[in-house]
């Protein structure tokens, strides 16, 4: 059933409208069908925990509300939050904080239940894909495979696949946690909490990004092409992809206007940081170009095959060695992202850093929401 402006979120033939509420949690990114509801309802959970809304995010809030109503998800009172918001502005801060704490608790419980279910689903998916791999390889070799053959037959593809699936799982959790932290920052900034509390939130935010780079490093060893393809991100995020992630200088350009007011010293420092990051990005990009060039040269040095099979094998081995460098590139790009974040942390005050992290989290949320909307947009029948 659809509510809200006619046609705005009308989905003609989506698997979502047919499935039960619980099935919507399955992530199907890797199959190329982007599952909008995983992201939207996930975001929706965090949204509900935060009863005082940032008016800047109101358009996304509206979109989210419509999705929730359509799917018959956790029922929400449409007029409730806005009423509470008006009253809250006049209530003492401790009542606000208590209500927020209650909301957080309820949302937390809901998230835990959902998490358990998702983990169950994802480990089943992992097992299924491993079995499929095994079967496919055995079929190619013309061998009948009966039953589980043990770890040794999973081989290279099996390991790669599970590395990727493990990363997807961890990244999904990472995004959930980021959404939660973003809401917490928004609430804290609006409630004008002390700098000490803000500092704690900022430091959690910073170490959360460290976690991302850590899991990406592990995934890079497992399947660097997967990481570089950006298939683990939503489509709109993928549009901005540079060596397996965002360009730090672009993010700085997008976010620095939201940090005003900055002192003159800070403005200069941010500007220098942007420039330094740009230079480092250029150096890495040129390194990548060089890698492409050398790889192409390695593969095309003997088209007639005149030098024999041994040389062909040698070429391949050589090319394999070159590909290893891709892992270094992804690691260096992530290192650059991390350094840029940390330098911003040094330049900004605690409050500014909190606003910066909020702006960053909010930006990513909007990109993901945009990806969902795009995937769900009404299309002309063929």
């Amino acid at each position, binding site marked *: 059933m659809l509510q809200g402006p006619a046609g705005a979120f009308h989905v003609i033939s989506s698997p979502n409208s047919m499935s039960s509420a619980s099935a919507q949690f399955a992530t199907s990114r890797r199959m190329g069908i982007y599952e909008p509801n995983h992201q939207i309802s996930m975001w929706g959970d965090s949204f509900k925990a935060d009863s005082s809304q940032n008016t800047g995010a109101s358009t996304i809030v509206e979109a989210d509300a419509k999705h929730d109503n359509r799917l018959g998800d956790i029922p929400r009172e449409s007029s409730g939050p806005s009423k509470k918001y008006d009253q809250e502005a006049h209530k003492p801060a401790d009542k606000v904080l208590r209500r927020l704490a209650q909301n957080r608790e309820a949302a937390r419980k809901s998230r835990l239940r959902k998490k358990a279910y998702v983990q169950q689903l994802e480990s089943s998916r992992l097992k299924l894909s491993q079995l499929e791999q095994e079967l496919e390889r055995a079929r190619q070799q013309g061998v009948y495979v009966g039953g589980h053959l043990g770890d040794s037959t999973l081989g290279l593809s099996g390991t790669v696949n599970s590395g990727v699936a493990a990363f997807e799982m961890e990244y999904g959790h990472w995004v959930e946690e980021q959404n939660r932290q973003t809401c917490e920052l928004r609430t804290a900034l609006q409630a004008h909490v002390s700098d000490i509390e803000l500092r704690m939130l900022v430091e959690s935010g910073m170490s959360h990004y460290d976690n991302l780079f850590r899991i990406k490093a592990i995934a890079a060893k497992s399947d660097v092409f997967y990481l570089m393809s950006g298939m683990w991100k939503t489509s709109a995020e993928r549009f901005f992809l540079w060596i397996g992630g965002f360009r730090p200088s672009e993010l700085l350009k997008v976010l620095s206007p939201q940090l005003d007011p900055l002192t003159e010293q800070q403005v200069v*420092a941010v500007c*220098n*940081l942007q*420039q*330094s*990051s*740009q*230079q*480092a990005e*250029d*150096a*890495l990009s*040129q*390194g*990548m*170009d*060089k*890698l492409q*060039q*050398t790889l192409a040269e390695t593969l095309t040095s003997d088209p007639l095959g005149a030098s024999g099979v041994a040389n062909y094998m040698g070429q391949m081995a050589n090319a394999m060695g*070159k590909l290893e*460098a891709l892992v*270094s*590139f992804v690691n*260096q790009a992530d*290192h*650059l992202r991390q*350094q*840029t974040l940390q*330098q911003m942390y*040094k330049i900004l005050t605690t409050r500014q850093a909190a606003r910066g992290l909020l702006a960053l989290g909010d930006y990513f949320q909007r990109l993901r929401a945009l990806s969902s909307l795009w995937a769900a947009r009404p299309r002309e029948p063929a």
Partner: protein
Amino acid sequence: MQQAIPYSKGAAWVRRSNDGRRPPVEPAAMAARCVASSGDIRRVVEENPVVVVGRRGCCMVHVVRRLLLGQGVNPTVCEVGEDADEAALIGELHPEMAAEGGDGGAHLRGQGMVLPAVFIGGRLVGGLDRLMAVHISGELVPILKQAGALWL
């Protein structure tokens, strides 16, 4: 391949050309010296303000070079064979080369030298990681100036 200097640094590179000891050359034409032993490397590091030591055919050497060129310095590149032993290199170079900053030295002493390695003013700065960190924090240019690799 197009050896394009990053647009943002075009004018700056022309202004701060080089250390004056050699005539200005196109980056593409800059001769990379092939070294056989770490003794050679030590000599090169002592004689040149900015030196990059790396394996032949390594694309990270290229990244390091572009980054330094963007700052207005033209580094001397020392290539070692693809099978060169990093541990042996650090053994030779370490006693003479003090690391830039305490933590960089500890890392290198513990794990052996990472390649490519950057030397500025005869001292080991570190690998690409370290170079990036130093560049982002704004410390690279002062280090280069102190070593006489950059004027102005």
